[in-house]
């Protein structure tokens, strides 16, 4: 059972991009196959970093403030809900204004839909679905005390976007050390390989081509020095 003081923590650095959160969100009884969260791939060309995007449940939600139809409501527990269907005019103001990129416009339903922190589950003592299944701990639901004990990262729930300061119910885990991580395999290779043509297979003194075979493949057993180098 969850406790009243349990909170939601997101650590994007732990995300492995598996989509378990998104797939499970759709399976939640009231969601009827439609996930209310999504996964962002940062830049697949540069790396495998991904991040789950769940609603941060701002104290003073920007999405609600910009809604011309007053369709987005925050309940007494601070949960910011999807747009109310009779009111939503599907103008997408909320989608454009949210500093975290959370709401999505469902064009065919003409409705903004977003994560409500699994109100139907938390109200009966269960953790939100995505945080229950997340296999890597990128999504965590529990007490602040516990997460501060088991993790080295620090929870942060105040963010600055230019002049705007946003405080949220959900915390992001961040590292105190600022590091620039090398994300290119090239950076981990031996220096001489970095300059090498990837197609030039006969590396200087490459010792194992001639003895490589365990079968009598003539292509492999022939004298490797005779194989031309592609330039």
């Amino acid at each position, binding site marked *: 059972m969850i406790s009243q003081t349990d909170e939601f923590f997101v650590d994007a650095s732990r995300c492995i991009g*598996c989509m*378990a959160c998104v797939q499970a969100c759709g399976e939640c009884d009231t969601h009827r196959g439609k996930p209310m969260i999504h996964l962002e791939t940062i830049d697949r060309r540069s790396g495998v970093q991904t991040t789950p995007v769940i609603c941060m449940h701002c104290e003073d939600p920007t999405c609600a403030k910009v809604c011309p139809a007053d369709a987005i409501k925050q309940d007494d527990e601070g949960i910011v809900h999807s747009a109310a269907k009779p009111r939503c005019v599907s103008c997408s103001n909320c989608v454009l204004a949210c500093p975290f990129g959370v709401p999505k416009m469902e064009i065919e339903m003409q409705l903004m839909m977003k994560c409500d922190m699994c109100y139907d589950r938390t109200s009966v003592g269960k953790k939100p679905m995505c945080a229950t299944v997340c296999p*890597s701990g990128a999504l965590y639901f529990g007490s602040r005390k516990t997460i501060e004990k088991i993790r080295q990262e620090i929870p942060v729930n105040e963010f600055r976007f230019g002049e705007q300061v946003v405080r949220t119910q959900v915390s992001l885990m961040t590292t105190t050390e600022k590091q620039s991580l090398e994300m290119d*395999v090239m950076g981990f290779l031996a220096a001489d390989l970095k300059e090498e043509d990837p197609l030039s297979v006969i590396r200087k003194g490459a010792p194992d081509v001639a003895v490589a075979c365990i079968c009598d493949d003539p292509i492999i057993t022939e004298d490797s020095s005779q194989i031309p180098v592609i330039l």
Partner: protein
Amino acid sequence: MAHLVINEEDYIRRYGPSLNYTPESGWKTEQADRLVKTHCCFCGVQCGIQLKVKNDRIIGFEPWEEFPVNQGKLCPKGIKRYLQNEHPDRLKNPLIRCESGFRSAEWEEAMERTVTAIQSIQSRYGKDAFAFLGGASMTNEKAYLNGKFARLALETSNIDYNGRLCMVSAGAANKMAFGIDRSANPWSDIPKAEVVLLAGTNLSECFPVLTEHVWKARDNGGKIIVIDPRMTPIARTCDLFLPVRPGTDSALVNGILHIMILEGWVDEDFIRNHTNGFDRVRESVHSWTPARTQQVTGVPAANIVKAAELWGNARTSILLHARGIEHHTNGVDNVLNYINLVLTTGRIGREGCGYGTITGQGNGQGGREHGQRCNQLPGGRDINDAKHRNEIADFWGVSESELPGEGLTACEIIDAIEDGKIKGLLSISFNPLVSIPDSRRTKAALEKLEFFACIDFFLSETGRHADVIFAGSLQAEDEGTVTTGEGRCIHLPNSIPPPGNARVDWKIICELAERLGKGQFFDFRKSEEIFTELCAASKGGPIDYSGMNYQKLEEDFGIFWPCPNSNHSGTPRLFEDRCFFFPDGKARFHGIDHRGPAEEVDADYPIYLTTGRVVSQYLSGNQTRRIGDLVDQYPKPLCEMHPKLADRLGILDAEEIRVVTRRGTMLVPAQIVRTIRPDTVFIPYHWPGKQSANQLTNRVLDPISKIPEFKVCACRLEKIHDEPKKEVPS
């Protein structure tokens, strides 16, 4: 004989794969009658999960947070697996081949036809001309039954299983080094390690829930070393990343051992008192200086030294590996060499210290223990060992001479079919047309079969070639046990009955045996009776389950073998007494002289091709390619390549290119990423036909384990729209 009779589109139209997105009764909120606590049907982690059942239909899932291994965590495959059960493609009747493809048939006809064909082929060509292929996604009960059925009812030596494509290199090396084939530690030891070395395991995509175990080690201050030609999600945040050139794993280990021995980062006492053969290691690593190792592996010398320093000086450590080092013609050597790293430090058999191979298939561990391998009898016994043969012959009540000898391995069975030596085949839960290298030859082999019968729940690409299909059972439709990658035997309750006229697999096998005149050996009324017999058969063998029963497995969240008597609570961690499973109690070092892959790159095929998995698909995809949301997540194979290679060849992202090897050609879109070595490309293998990476791979086998070399072969990339250059006369 077994040529396809209608075109592919027609098979797909009738039998799928079609995409199922919603539960059978739609998304209306239904209250379940019951929640069944069971396990995922996919990888060797076997996460606990609860299936929601209403009126004997599975309508959804609910996390099961009490199961200690995953505590409710799941990957997308586990979340969506229930959509198989009420799937429109599900086979509900036996099928018999006819001019228009297949027709539904009664069980009587399917059985009669199969038994007649078995008898006809065996009377004309000999008993061994009929082969059996099993699978490691099935329960221990079925693995045991398959072995017994092949030996006593089919009387063939040619039985093997698809674990031959999976864990056999590790299994063989484990037996050679430790005398026992099991991961040495429970996964709960991972967070307690100061250094976790992950070799050739795309852990976060293939075993996602183990990710948190590894990262807990890091939260505790531990260091993670990842060895992989690709920067996989687990490699992204590791402390030391060694992107090894495909096929050079044992060279890299020799380089690391070289430094450890040079610096004295070895446990001399442990080596002296508990091992044999270290001198041979000393010899074989002698010439592997950091410079030479760098040259062969492409890993910077400084990082090789760093790895030796981290591993050598740790107080606690865990080494985990998977198919990345095993799928090679030197797969056994690679595993043995990694075991050398463990034995050199003596860090095994203690809390937070040890070793394990992560099994890829649902019952990758148990599926290889109970006698469905060509060289194995129940209880992990050796079919070539006279004592073992006698024990099992006595147990089964037959004479030793009636037990067939060692048969062919899975790939060799396919070869023998192609060569015309094997004429008939019964396969269960195996899709070799997708999963075995050189698929053009696999297809040619299937077309030569005189008779082919399949037991399966969906019609696989391989099954299209069959004469008879028996509609079998999905995991949730039967009761049984599986043994996870950590050696924990767990119970799977029966969630629902099979749909329509489909039957549970073991009843199909038992009836075939009955009709072959061997019913007295297969008189089982429920799967628990098979388990009881399996446990009794294993008594006194290397793999001893004899103290287990279903009730104990349920009560204790499973039991780790060995469990040799009913008062025994199982053995989560092996070797705590520093005693290894050899007569002298000592573990064995094996000095490894590095051999490269069977096919090296050359001027015509200058790029390494490696293959593997994606998180949303499972093995040959016969289950997961039918689940809409999983297919949408990664719909078709892509060829990962580094921008440096792509730029050199003028290939753009998403451009369809031609990948060519000596076996075949494949058209596939390029995915340009910096997360792979520039001399290597990667294609995942879950798809059939023209999308199959196994059109390209090389069917050469490790001489000991007979695993094929999925992880490295030579290829070239061609732009499709480039005209071949014309010779200009000078």
